[in-house]
């Protein structure tokens, strides 16, 4: 094969640093999967907090993701104007609201109280939900950090951190349970938290800018 010809083809694997660039290529499944794994859980948690029913939550995630990609490919998202995080939040909010309004309307019709419009108070306005979105974002990022930490941290140290910092065991109990010194228990906590803080910063930045590091 002519080397020049092959270089003109779109890459099948992610080679650029941008997840968003990869989304422009419809054949790039890896990017789509990463995109879905990354932002899907945030939309899912957000939809649950706004009290969507479980089957509606699935719809909300799927519709938000598909709309994001479609509109991004159509050039609706301008990276210079706003952050990906808030744009995605807006899309998710409108999808969720649409689903909820649709349900309320259906229920009103079923109960024979046909009103002019579905109620506007179906969910709070977007300003009031931003905080929920942010909390969910933080949660999912931390969970991603924990996944990574699991793979790279010594299991005894991780267990010491878990028992001491998350399950409120005393340092003495943890030391006895795992057969390590108390100092090591304290050190495990600080090393794991320090690592999480660094990872969080990096993942948060990458996710906000739609990058792959």
């Amino acid at each position, binding site marked *: 094969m002519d080397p020049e010809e092959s270089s003109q083809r779109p890459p099948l694997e992610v080679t650029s640093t941008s997840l968003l660039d990869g989304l422009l290529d419809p054949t790039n499944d890896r990017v789509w999967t990463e995109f879905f794994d990354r932002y899907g859980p945030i939309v899912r948690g957000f939809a649950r907090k706004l*009290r969507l029913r479980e089957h509606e939550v699935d719809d909300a995630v799927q519709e938000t993701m598909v709309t994001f990609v479609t509109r991004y490919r159509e050039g609706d998202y301008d990276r210079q104007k706003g952050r990906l995080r808030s744009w995605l939040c807006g899309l998710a909010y409108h999808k969720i609201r649409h689903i909820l309004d649709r349900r*309320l309307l259906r229920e009103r019709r079923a*109960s024979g109280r046909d009103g002019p419009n579905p*109620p506007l108070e179906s969910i709070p306005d977007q300003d009031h939900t931003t905080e929920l979105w942010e909390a969910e974002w933080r949660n*999912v990022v931390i*969970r991603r950090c924990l996944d990574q930490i699991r793979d790279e941290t010594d299991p005894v140290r991780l267990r010491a951190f878990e028992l001491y910092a998350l399950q409120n065991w005393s340092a003495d109990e943890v030391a006895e349970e795992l*057969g390590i010194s108390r*100092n090591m228990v304290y050190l495990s906590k600080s090393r794991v938290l320090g690592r999480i803080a660094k990872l*969080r910063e990096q993942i948060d930045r990458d996710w906000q800018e739609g990058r792959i590091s």
Partner: protein
Amino acid sequence: MKSCPTASQIERYAAGELSPEEVEQIDRHVEGCLECAQRLDGATAFADVLSDVQQASQQETLVVPESKRIKTVRPEEDSLLGRVIGDFEVRRLIGIGGMGTVYEAEQLSLKRRVALKVLHAPVSARTAGVLRFGREAQAAARLHHTNVVSVFAQGLSDGLRYYAMEMIDGSGLDQVIREIRRQRDEDRASAELASADGRTPARSSRRSARTRWSEFDMRRRLVELDRIDARKRFDLGARLLAEVADALDYAHRQGVIHRDVKPSNLILSADGRMSLTDFGLARVLEQPGMTVAGEFMGSPLYMSPEQVAAGRVPIDHRTDIYSLGASLYEFLCLQPPYAGETRDQVIGQIRRGKLRRLRQIDRRIPKDLETVCLKAMRPDPVHRYESAGEMADDLRRFVQRFAIHARRASAVTRAVKFVRRHSLEVGIITGVLVVMTAIGTAALYYRQLQKQAEIDLISAKNQARESLSRWDRYRLAGALDQGYADVANCQFAKAHASFTNAIQLVENDKMGHLGRHPGGYVGRGLTGYLAEILGVARGRSVFADDFKTAFALRPRSELISLLSRLPDPATASRDGAQSLAPLLAEIGNIGDGPIRDMTRDHGALVYVVLAWVALAGRDLDLALALSDEALAAQPNFVASYLIHAMVLSAKGQLAEARDYATWAMRWASHRRSTDDEQDMTGYVVRAMVMLVMGNRYEAFRQSRLVVNLLSKRPTTRATTRATPQGRRRPASRMSHQP
């Protein structure tokens, strides 16, 4: 670093601002200086990230997965290679489990290979760990069975606790399952590739696999059988698991419960024997008939519902039957019975017990084998096999094509099985019969046509009757739906009317189409009860009578029986937690079953009412769980938000309580209209919300408005003692505030 780091260095360390060299210096220092370790522990820079981690980790567990533990070799485990421990010389590391490390070793006196399990050093230091290790050895040592891995000796040497057991060259059933799964994936991928290339998938591997069978060990044989003839894999699996069931039956009769039966504890030897190992969680029942409380240990994927109940339900040998059923389940369909991302999710699913039927996953799985598996995994131990021996029998009956005992086979099923066992004889006899029958049939055919006309007429009449019955059921469902929609809008009078309508439909049902349906009474009773709680009562006697009538119609319904014994909402909080305790225990028990099966609106209303009772009885965890269910079932329900806010407030989670209170308020104001009853509901909600938010003055003001409205009501509407109840209600709620 010899001197202690300064406070600023510690904070910079925690904030990640130091260079790697400085970090290493501080690490080394802290390892030997307890004071600095404690200072580091209190560094403020960690507070923010720790709180986020705590919040995120509520939804999952960090516990190190078993697979990762096994890969990690600690220094002391490496150093044992080549050492002599007691009579055993350590040769090779086989694996690391939760309690100890398993090595291949040679017993020097008898010159035989054994598997040597050595207790982990940290576990050795703890008395409980030593006891458990000893128990494992003792439990296994008292069992002598072909399908139980034998224990030869145990001892203590140079501070190392160990026991020696039979060495089996083979692999765990979990590995076999993994391999079959991988093989299927590969086959599927190559078939797809072949079809994409326009080729037909290669079949030659089948034939060659058959010819090479003699070279395979049992594990390979199972994997290959899955490709060649899945039915034979099922037969072989059933035979192997029947042996394990025999072994379990034997252990149970010796008074030993394994408690951790799972595929990785079923070892398949190369020569085709499946043995039970790892008695680490086993319990020895010293007295026959005695049961033990379950402890929450072991792998949740294969745990029985009573085991995940963690001590609240006694467990007996039937927990092993369940776990063996779960292992069979995974062997058959290649996926565990319940899947979940976290331990809590798996446990939740086991409790709910909604198992996916095997034949929905793989149609090739024989019905009888599915029946055996599902009977072993019945959520209630009473419905499982009485003993592992019975399960073994049924597995063998399946292999030999006899009708199994698990499901009483119909005459047809028995006949089919008989035919399969004696296919040649039956074939000849059937041939003769077919010829004779054909002659007879032709003669009968003409008469049959005449009869058909009569049958058509009867069937038309039946259809007409059926459509009438369907219409009646449709009307009843409509009235009930309407009632619940009204309750969701806090329109209690309308809801009352809708449910009354449903009741009349049932009472006027002369044809018996509706089967004395109690739904109207239940709905009307719940509406009355909720109205009482919210202080917009229409009278206690009505709801009490309704529940009683419903109970008379369905005396065997757990839920209705419970409702008919609900306390008077006015006195519930006064009576206190103790008097409600038995009722709360019952609510906790039935919370999962009957209510979940109801329609969303109905379920939500029941959850709300029960949550109020739990709140009055001060069982806050139960109240929270119930109110959470109410919200999940029906997010449009003002009362759901309100009760959730009240419970959170009583638990001291004020910030969250306020969120939900605000939601309740939003919904209540959305429901406002000119109807005075709705207005009053709005005031009541607002009064309670203000209480949750700690604004007692505003709460008082709103409750005065309710009192004013109640006093203006015409007496015909405020039946019985609605007014005095309404006056007292806001005050009684005060007692729930923290």
